[in-house]
């Protein structure tokens, strides 16, 4: 792998950019790997990367049904924050956020992390109390957030309407070091770094079965033939249930569509991320100038990667009240992803009933922000059998009543 640098750009400019090589190899699968990761999205690739980097396990394959980063990694609104209420969530999301800080240097790939600040608006009395509680919890957890008054909100976001009759802005939970990153670049950067370690990223290869012997995983069947492995990590978001079924166990998940949309590009008008959970819309401005808008999930089980139009209407209608100037914006693109929702709206990073098989799923509507932390914890779990980052997120917590109840903490699915 050739190092990316200012010098490399200059060198390639002198020879008409003929020397750039492919960012990652596309090899045929080998017969056997120490570990196989199913799913080449952000979480899967990050898991592979930290297996190699932190634990020296580099004989790894990442198998992907479609194309790399083409699932929810390429379909989210790129928001990064860690202002969660519960300790286990704050720990893993803050680990992720802090890894994002120098991810570009670590991967030698510009993931365009932009810690522009994330603001969660309080628009009801209930939300004021909720967010003040979260701010206090964050102080104890070592996560830097603060409660700010409406005047400060207006100062940070001049285009906001803070005294609307229906949704007045009463204050906000402000995380200054939250922000956004380029979602595709996160997947591409991890893929390039994995490939450089000698790992095989096998795209267009669907896993069709999980082979097991005496209660232990021994390999997978794929559309490119059988591949042996010692350890298997299933990191496939919306289709986790199908993979688990192949492994002979079940997951407490439901697959639901979540949509997002972007407007036509306009001049810079908002340099922070604003989330409004009462009306359930969130918005940020991309580097191209598009307003990136997300809302809530559709209400019913759905695997189609497209959602219902009236949810978009509800999201936009609410945001127009809070940001009157967007009312004449044309929306350019809309898309949907399949999110895997758990009962407590927190993820599952766990061993499974099948020996040597690990699962990382259930990130629901908030997985992108967690990619580095999730990969870090999952790699530790797969390599050593235990990780302090993931120990609360086990599969059996539902049976034992140890919920990590963020659906209550956030007031919405996050």
């Amino acid at each position, binding site marked *: 792998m050739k190092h990316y640098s200012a010098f490399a750009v200059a060198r390639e400019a002198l020879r008409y950019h003929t020397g750039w090589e492919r960012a990652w190899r596309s090899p045929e699968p080998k017969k056997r790997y120490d570990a196989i990761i199913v799913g080449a999205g952000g979480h899967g690739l990050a898991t592979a990367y930290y297996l190699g980097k932190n634990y020296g396990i580099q004989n790894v394959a990442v198998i992907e049904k479609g194309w790399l980063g083409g699932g929810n990694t390429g379909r989210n609104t790129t928001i990064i924050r860690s202002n969660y209420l519960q300790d286990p969530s704050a720990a893993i999301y803050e680990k992720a956020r802090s890894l994002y800080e120098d991810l570009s240097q670590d991967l030698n790939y510009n993931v365009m992390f932009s810690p522009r600040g994330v603001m969660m608006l309080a628009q009801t009395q209930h939300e004021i109390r909720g967010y003040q509680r979260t701010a206090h919890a964050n102080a104890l957890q070592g996560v830097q957030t603060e409660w700010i008054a409406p005047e400060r909100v207006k100062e940070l976001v001049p285009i906001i309407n803070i005294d609307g009759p229906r949704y007045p802005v009463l204050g906000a939970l402000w995380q200054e070091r939250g922000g956004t990153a380029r979602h595709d670049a996160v997947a591409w950067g991890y893929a390039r770094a994995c490939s450089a370690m000698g790992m095989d990223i096998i795209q267009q290869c669907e896993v069709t079965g999980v082979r097991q012997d005496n209660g232990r995983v021994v390999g997978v069947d794929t559309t490119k033939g059988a591949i042996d492995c010692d350890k298997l990590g299933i990191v496939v978001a919306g*289709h986790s*249930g*199908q993979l688990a079924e192949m492994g002979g166990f*079940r*997951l*407490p*998940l*439901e*697959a639901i569509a979540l949509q997002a949309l972007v407007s036509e590009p306009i001049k810079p008008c908002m340099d922070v991320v604003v989330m409004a959970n009462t009306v359930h819309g969130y918005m940020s401005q991309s580097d191209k100038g598009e307003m990136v808008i997300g809302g809530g999930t559709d*209400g*019913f*089980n*759905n*695997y*189609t990667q497209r959602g*219902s*139009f*009236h949810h978009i209407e509800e999201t936009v209608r609410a945001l127009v009240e809070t940001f009157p100037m967007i009312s004449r914006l044309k929306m350019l693109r809309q898309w949907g992803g399949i999110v895997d929702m*758990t*009962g407590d709206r927190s993820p599952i990073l766990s061993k499974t009933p099948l020996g040597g098989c690990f699962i990382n799923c259930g990130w629901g509507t908030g997985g992108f922000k967690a990619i580095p932390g999730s990969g870090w914890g999952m790699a530790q779990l797969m390599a050593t059998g235990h990780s302090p980052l993931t120990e609360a997120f086990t599969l059996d917590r*539902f*049976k034992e009543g140890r919920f990590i109840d963020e659906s209550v903490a956030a007031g919405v699915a996050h």
Partner: protein
Amino acid sequence: MLILNCPYCGVDAEETELSAGGEAHLKRYGPGASDEDFHDYLFMRENPKDVHLERWRHSNGCGKWFHAARCTRTLEVFGTYSAQVYEPPQEIKDAISAKRPGWTWRDFS
């Protein structure tokens, strides 16, 4: 846009008139049940990528709950039926079988 026929008022209702109510025909375990059964009742959904039996409410219409059989992969609707049953009536099962031969669902209680 999803359109379901409400078996009570007969209206072809589109999504904005309806509220989704999740998986249908759950067996409700309560006090005295085993941990396993209670856990499965609370959290384990079929979540199939195919035929899904589910509950809907005609909330901005007649207000009644009803059942629907729908495919989560194609959004095709096989039919809707009364809420007062423990399993789909034969004609709904036949309608599903005609389109999805060999479809399965867990045991009806």
